[in-house]
């Protein structure tokens, strides 16, 4: 199964397999808000906002970077999630 991920800021889309971390799909396709450090949920550099769609969080995300309020708002670390539907995303920004 493959899902379509749309980055609203660049208006580009790319595919992500259901068993593929979102960050890996961005690295594979060179699309989306690619920014990363540790790849392990610890550094917070890959933080994004999922505006629409469903996903699973397959790896624990550091509380230092994703508060429970943010998680409820679907602000997540792209190295820790896999899509379970098409997604609309954008790079995380403070406002």
């Amino acid at each position, binding site marked *: 199964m493959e899902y379509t991920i749309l980055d609203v800021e660049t208006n580009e889309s790319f595919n992500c397999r259901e068993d593929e971390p979102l960050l890996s799909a961005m690295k594979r396709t060179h699309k989306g808000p690619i920014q990363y*450090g*540790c*790849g*392990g*949920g*610890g*550094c917070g*550099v890959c933080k994004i906002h999922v505006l629409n769609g469903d996903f699973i969080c397959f*790896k*624990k*995300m*550091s*509380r*230092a*970077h994703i508060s429970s309020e943010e998680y409820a708002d679907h602000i997540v670390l792209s190295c820790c999630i896999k899509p379970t539907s098409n997604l609309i995303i954008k790079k995380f920004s403070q406002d």
Partner: protein
Amino acid sequence: MAITKTIRPGLIQIRVLDLDETLDFYKNIIGLDEVGRTSDGRVMLKTYDEFDHHSVVLRKADEAGLDYVAFKMVSEEALEQAKLDTEKFGYPVEVASDEQPGFGKRYSFKLCTGHTIQLYHEVELASDYPMLRNPDPWKEEPRGIRAQRFDHLLCYGPNIAEAERYFMEVLGMFAPEVCNTDDGKRFATWLTGGNKAHDIAFVEYEQPGKMHHFAFYLQDWNDIGHAADLIGKYRVKRDVGPTRHAITRGQTIYFWEPSGNRIETYAGGYAAYPDNPQRVWDVSEVGRGLFYYEGELIPSFLSVVS
């Protein structure tokens, strides 16, 4: 050179997000041995070449990063004196209350940079330590990247000039190498209590209490190459290297363990002597100082911390 006050950073406690996955990495990729568990489930580890009870502790938590690092003092008297001098310096000191099997009394305080530092003297020998009589280099072939010891750490936080003064005045350490901004403020400092090029280093950073990396010592450049092979083979998330630092002259690789804490494998480095003049870097040249072969700064190095 005789070490008169502070022997080395001998204990580090790290927060990890996924205990099982991260522990497997420390055992099989780094090559540490599991010593045991505390009653609250933290895992104690050591390298094959260390003598003391344990040196690395993993604690499962919601965030990655550093809980604390503890320095071993040369004697009980040096420990008590350091406690008094730490209070005189202005940091309130407590006796650490968390369990660390094998360790005697530990004093704990918070440095201006937001990091918790501990001091101790007494620690039992490990049940399994390197041979003493007609010793082989190792008892059993070392595993993984063959880490020999917990070597040093790099902390990010505010007011490192004060932290440097603390380590020099209270713990009797010195800074073989520093880096200053154009207006003459400390941007980074490398500090040691013995002959190693550094035991702890600091970079000036707005957010308190951050850990940039902690490092394991490897035998030599050949072992750095071997570590790079394992990083490739097991798809470890690499940051920088293999390369060389001009600062401290060490040979190095940086990578992340599965919880996002950055680890360095470090070999070589010069012998530091307190009577040698201090080496000074301009911040404009620090990229070359850190990554001598690349000749420039790798952006993730300054911005990614846990």
